[in-house]
């Protein structure tokens, strides 16, 4: 068992079945689908509360609808970070890294260009995941398994936008 937990990469089918079964239990025990982008929005609201005061944030229409509080969804996101840390620690793949091999092969190994690109991508991701009202987890896995039309439509356009942009970055810019 422990040896298995130390393996670097599992079969995508084992991981997929694992996530599928995990979502049965999240509906059953917590009445909640697995989703990640709500937790980011909550964190953003909490940071803004520190900077601008509680009232200014709680008054905003968006946070009235999606309160910036610590709840199940926020704890889930924290857990994702911890779970990945445990997994990478067990397999020995934890490492402090700025640039991946693919990025380095096209744009070099200097941290700054990657940091700036990731920051722009991150801003778009924070904005886009709230615009689409969900992310690869909330729409892509949890919404699609509920046969939601909104979620299937979203995930198709996540990939249409993603494939087009990735092809542009690696085949035109690089």
């Amino acid at each position, binding site marked *: 068992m422990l040896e298995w937990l130390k393996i670097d990469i*599992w079969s*995508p089918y084992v991981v*997929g*079945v694992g*996530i*599928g079964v*995990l*979502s*049965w*239990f999240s509906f*059953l025990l917590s009445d909640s689908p697995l989703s990640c*982008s709500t937790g*980011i929005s909550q964190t953003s609201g909490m940071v803004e509360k520190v900077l601008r005061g509680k009232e200014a944030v709680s008054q905003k*229409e*968006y946070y009235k609808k999606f309160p910036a509080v610590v709840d*199940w969804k926020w704890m*889930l996101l924290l*857990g*994702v*970070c911890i*779970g*990945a840390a445990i997994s*990478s620690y067990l397999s020995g793949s*934890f490492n402090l890294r700025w640039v*991946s091999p*693919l*990025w380095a092969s096209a744009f070099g190994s200097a*941290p700054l260009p990657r940091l700036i*690109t990731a*920051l722009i*991508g991150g*801003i*778009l*991701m*924070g*904005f*886009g*995941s*709230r615009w*689409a009202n*969900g*992310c690869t*987890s*909330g*729409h*892509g896995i949890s*919404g699609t*398994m*509920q046969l939601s*039309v909104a979620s*299937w439509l*979203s995930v198709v*356009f*996540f*990939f*249409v*936008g*993603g*494939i087009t942009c990735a*092809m542009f970055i690696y085949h035109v810019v690089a």
Partner: protein
Amino acid sequence: MLTKLHGKRGLQNILGLGFGIVFGFLLQKGGVTDYDVIVKQLLLVDFTVVKIMLTAVATGMIGVHALKSMGKVRLQPKAGSVGMNVIGGLVFGVAFATLGYCPGTAFGAVGQGYLDALLGGVVGMLLGSGLFAAVYPGMNKTILNKGFFGDVTFPDLLKMNCWVVVGIFVVVLSGILVLLEVSGL
């Protein structure tokens, strides 16, 4: 439904943390907390992301509909619109390729030590979410409700029994996975 359990907030927070730990563990073991695996999927040279997603969706679909038929869970499909899911989805897609992570996998990447995910991804996502909250009232009056169609599901839309639709989806999704394996992707 386990309504009593659902109402215990402290316990639910602990459960949320537990679900997150297992989710993050699985994402990392699947390799999708890595920029290269995600971007190679978008470049259509590595299909790990699609394999994990389709397997999770097919597995999850059978279970949650079975639990729903037994009265143990309530489904909560989101309401949608063309402005939200198509336009917002495209913005998300551009972000997906530029950042090289999605929200969940970015947090997983932070857990395994990737600094671009932390100082670029997480910082950027916090800024982007905050920005969206600031412009939300205006967008809610305009683009977010363009082509609104509500929280419909495919069984509603096709006026079919949900198990027939689940059956069709599971067969199609499994078929795609078999095709990917057969073609060596």
